């Protein structure tokens, strides 16, 4: 392969990646090939095949309601389009999945940066989903893009949480605003926003304590935090990322719904996708509540955080099914 060809190819690849960052376009090549493999084993389109599909989706933790809806609309389309070959069905499945996720919208997974000052990003979620780690990874990513970053340790509840964030601050090389354990998280946020503004910091990442969504008092505490942010920022929009562990089952829907009532969740960070869990509940969350996935956590390394890519994701759903 000639040098020019190589350069040309890598440039094209970069453009492709950029495209995903700007807005996810409907592409179907990658996921289609893997699905074909799945479908090649069955000759005809019958109930057994639909049951197999249902199994794939339920085993991937896609919400039960969403799966039922998906299979129903697939069956209807199969009849309507007189779809007889499994190849045609594969096409239909991927189309239906894309439609299900995109809902006719263009999804921008980029952070909405504030052009006139500090961009605030709030991380919320239940216990143990990886909020602090995701903040560390995102901070690294933003620093690499040349942005100045600050962290706020608003998880004043869990033992060791402040220290954990400070370690990430050192690794990434950014200041961490913290008070003592047990301090009012809203006051930490208040201080951090003032400090970030004073230092003309580009991005402020706020770590909060994990909380189960049915704990009324903890959700009230979160409500107070968002009000503090809104008061300090005025009309300036900010990002709120709900961090969801890929191993989460149907409860993810309840998490998204109830956290969404308290905070304006702008995107989901789907963590621990490097395991065997598929995190399919995010499809149900998107379908039922409209919240898109912004980032995915793919491993232990500091660089293992990526923009969500629906094509890659669908590919992953089917990839190891027929190993």
């Amino acid at each position, binding site marked *: 392969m000639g040098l020019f060809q190589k350069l040309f190819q890598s440039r094209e690849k970069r453009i492709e990646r950029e495209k995903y960052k700007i807005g996810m376009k409907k592409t179907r090549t990658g996921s289609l090939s893997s699905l074909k493999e799945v479908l090649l084993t069955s000759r005809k389109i019958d109930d057994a095949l639909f049951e197999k599909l249902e199994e794939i989706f339920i085993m991937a933790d896609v919400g039960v309601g969403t799966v039922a809806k998906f299979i129903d609309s697939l069956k209807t389309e199969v009849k309507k389009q007189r779809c007889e070959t499994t190849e045609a069905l594969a096409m239909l499945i991927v189309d239906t999945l894309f439609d299900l996720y995109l809902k006719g919208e263009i999804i921008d997974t980029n952070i909405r940066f504030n052009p006139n000052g500090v961009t605030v990003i709030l991380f919320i979620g*239940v216990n143990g989903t990886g909020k602090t780690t995701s903040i560390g990874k995102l901070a690294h990513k933003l620093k690499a893009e040349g942005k100045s970053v600050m962290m706020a340790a608003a998880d004043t509840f869990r033992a060791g949480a402040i220290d954990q964030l400070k370690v990430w601050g050192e690794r990434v090389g950014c200041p961490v605003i913290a008070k003592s354990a047990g301090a009012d998280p809203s006051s930490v946020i208040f201080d951090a926003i003032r400090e970030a503004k004073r230092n003309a910091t580009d991005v402020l990442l706020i770590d909060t304590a994990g909380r189960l969504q*049915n704990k009324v008092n903890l959700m009230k505490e979160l409500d107070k935090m968002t009000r503090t942010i809104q008061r300090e920022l005025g009309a300036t929009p900010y990002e709120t990322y709900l961090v969801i562990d890929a191993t989460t089952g149907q409860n993810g829907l309840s998490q998204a719904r109830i956290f969404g009532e308290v905070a304006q969740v702008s995107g989901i960070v789907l963590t621990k996708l490097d395991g065997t869990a598929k995190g399919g509940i995010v499809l149900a969350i998107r379908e039922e509540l409209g919240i898109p996935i912004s980032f995915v956590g793919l491993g232990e390394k500091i660089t293992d955080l990526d923009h969500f890519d629906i094509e890659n994701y669908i590919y992953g759903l089917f990839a190891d099914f027929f190993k």
Partner: protein
Amino acid sequence: MAFENLTSRFQMAFRRLTGKARLNETDIEEMLREVRLSLLEADVNYKVVKEFTDEIRELALGEKILKGLNPGQQVVKVVNDELKRLMGSEAEPLKFADKGPTVVMLVGLQGTGKTTTAAKLASLIRKNHDRKPLLVAADIYRPAAIEQLKTVGAQLGIEVFERGDRQKPEAIVTEALAHAKSGGFDFVVIDTAGRLHINETLMDELVVIKRIVKPEEILLTIDAMTGQDAVTVAKAFNEALQVTGCILTKLDGDTRGGAALSVRKVTGVPIKFAGTGEKLTDIEIFHPERMASRILGMGDVVTLIEKATEEIDEAEAMSMMEKMLAGQFNYNDLLKQLKMIKRMGALSGILKFLPGMSALANSEKIDDKQLVYIEAIIRSMTPAERKQPELLERSSSRRRRIAEGSGRSSTEVNRLMAMLEKQQKMMKQFASMSPQSMEKLTDRMQDPQGFIPKKK
């Protein structure tokens, strides 16, 4: 609260069956569809659900059911028995070493709650078995994991053995064991780092630790919110380490916790403990059969009573129970009960233990502040009124005075009166409980109208 929606789904499915004289195949299929959907929504593994419903179908279609006098109840029993069998029938106690310190290894995925659980478990065993626990910090990977363990250890007054994050876990546990022996510690809990079951290097590390410490128990922590993958994870950890038990964490969430069913069924490993809250005392011995009946909406009165007696003076609780069951329940008792509830923790956490209340606890956000209001209303009553609730029923001026005195509306006073009355009735029925009346009661309590003040 675990299993809530499963409970209400089952209740709905079963309601259609009760009252019928005979079951036909269509009925059974319809019910099985509900059972299947609700189990899947509860995150029970797809394959487990399939086997389960197949088993039920066979049992339900058999002559046993059709010959029965009350088929609906028999199906309830079949499902309940099967669930119980699936969960394992009895609480499995922790094993202790015959001599020398008992060593427990906690293992699991990241973020499942190992560190918190290690501290809770050490504290529970110290309290219930009079042991001297030692916590061992073997998670050298997650930033500040050692700090976290040291903090919770200090809060509980339990010693934490640590060697920082520069030494290998294998070396740390070797030293820790020697320290336990020389220091007279007889219960050692090792907090290992969270890891993916497919990470061979880290899984091997656990195997080596196991070889060194020869643990009495290897407990796998499983997040109650885990979906279908729970089975894969449990299988992998079990194959590598021969896990002796599981701890189901974060069970105080609104998850239905079907992972518990799957893990038990697929690996055969018993669930021994459950984490039920943020406080370091929030850990319980896991009672599988109670969990099964909670699924069926029969409540978990036994756990409630146990929990109550642990926190409250036993005599006080007994006299309360007697009064409740005799239906002689006045505002003084209600006030005492509120105090107990306050001591026991959030109201919404208590509700799930009461039969049929699970649906209510889930569907409505119960505001603990309401307890304060109720207390204010009762405190505005005269001693006579508190003793004789019927005084209020007879006089609207009394009700008005109480409303004004407490700063609450008369609607709220009326609601409180209705609540007391319902509670009296409910407790009377409790006392003379047959399965049939239990079911009726459960049905009635599905209607949360004014029973417990709620907040939008």
